[in-house]
Structures are given as C-alpha cells and as structure tokens.
C-alpha cells in the first residue's frame, strides 16, 4: 500500500491501490514514521498507482500538507490520475498543494 524511498532532497511515499477509510490510517502511520526526517524537506506522495481516493484520504493529505508547512517543508502530490486531479481541483486542494502531473 505504501512504499518509502529516500532520495537526496525528498522522501517519497508511493501509494498503491485504494485510499479509503480502511487504508488511510496506513498512510497516516507511514507519515508518522518518517516525520522525524521531515524538517525543511520535500515529502512526495507518488499517486501514479493510486486507483481511488475518498474524503478520508483527502484528510490525510490535508493534515500532511499542514504538517509540512509547519516544518518548513512542502508536500508534493506526484502523477495523480485524471480522476484524482479532478477531485483535487473541485475540493480546492489543487490550489493549495503542489501537484506535479
């Protein structure tokens, strides 16, 4: 569901499958595990293999975005599907969070 990769300037959490009330806590825990490394860095959610996201997933994205802002870093949402892009746009998150298509 969540694979972690560390690079020079960013930490990447690659999400696979579906992000819903069952799996959102898994992503939240993954963020908590890398939290000590997040100061002034870039955290990437690689969404290229994410097939579904609902409001529970969006809430993890929002809380992580706020966490990164507090830590002087930034959250990037990378390669979202067209459906996820639409959800991010309609909810206004695309205007607040860095999205790399």
């Amino acid at each position, binding site marked *: 569901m969540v694979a972690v990769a560390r690079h020079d300037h960013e930490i990447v959490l690659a999400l696979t499958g579906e992000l819903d009330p069952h799996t959102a806590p898994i992503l939240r825990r993954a963020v908590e595990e890398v939290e000590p490394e997040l100061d002034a860095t870039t955290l990437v959610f690689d969404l290229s293999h994410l097939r579904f996201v609902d409001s529970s997933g969006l809430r993890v994205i929002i809380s992580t975005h706020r966490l990164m802002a507090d830590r002087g870093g930034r959250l990037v949402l990378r390669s979202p599907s067209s459906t996820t892009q639409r*959800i991010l746009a309609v909810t206004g998150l695309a205007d607040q969070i860095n999205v790399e298509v």
Partner: protein
Amino acid sequence: MSESVDHSDLREIRLSIPADVRFLRVARLTAAGIAGDLGFGLQAIEDLRVAIDEMCAVLIEGAPDTSELDLVYRFGPGQLTMEGHCRGSAGEPVIHPVAAELLRMTADEFEVTGDGDGRSFRLVKRQHDLPV
C-alpha cells in the same frame, strides 16, 4: 425535483455486508459493475464509486462490530438509486465537510438520516455523459 421513472423498468440487487471499512470496496465494486452494465461513462462510474463510499462510511461510523450494512441498488435505463441502512449505528449522522463537497460533486441526489433504529441513506446517480 426528481425526474419521473417508470418503475416497471427497474431491477434490484440487495447486498448485505459487515459494517466494517474493510468491506466498503464491495459496495463500490457492486455500484461500478451495475453502472458499467447500464452504459454509464467512465467519469460517472468513478463519481459513483466516490459517492457510495462516502455514504456507506457515514452510516457505519461508530457502528458496533456485529452490525450489518444493508444496501439496495435499484436501476433502470440511465439511473441508479442506492439505499443503505445500518442498524445499531448510534446518533445523528455527520458528514465531514470534505465528504459533503465530494458528494455534491459526484451525486445527483443524496440524503442521510438517523433515527433510533440506526442510519439510512439514499443516493441517486443519473447518466449524463456518453459511454466511453
């Protein structure tokens, strides 16, 4: 105002699943399968998956482990209506603002209610886009 539907054309599928977030995908999969069979377009099917997921999640929030989520899918040409009921889920249902935003985006009609017997929802999705 709801559009009129010829009820003689409607078919029905009933599904009962444990009131557990692990099984929300079963509700989504069923809705997507029916909508695909009706000829809904890809975007409408994706919308429907989000909408049914949000409605079911509201119903089972705080429900006892032994509760069941009873779902009815009624469908006919160009329209799918879903009703859900979860006995034992206590209190007035609360839709998170983010969930409400998604529901306004993805559903044609939705409502969720609660009473002493549990919580219920009704969700309508109509075919607006052309099949892809």
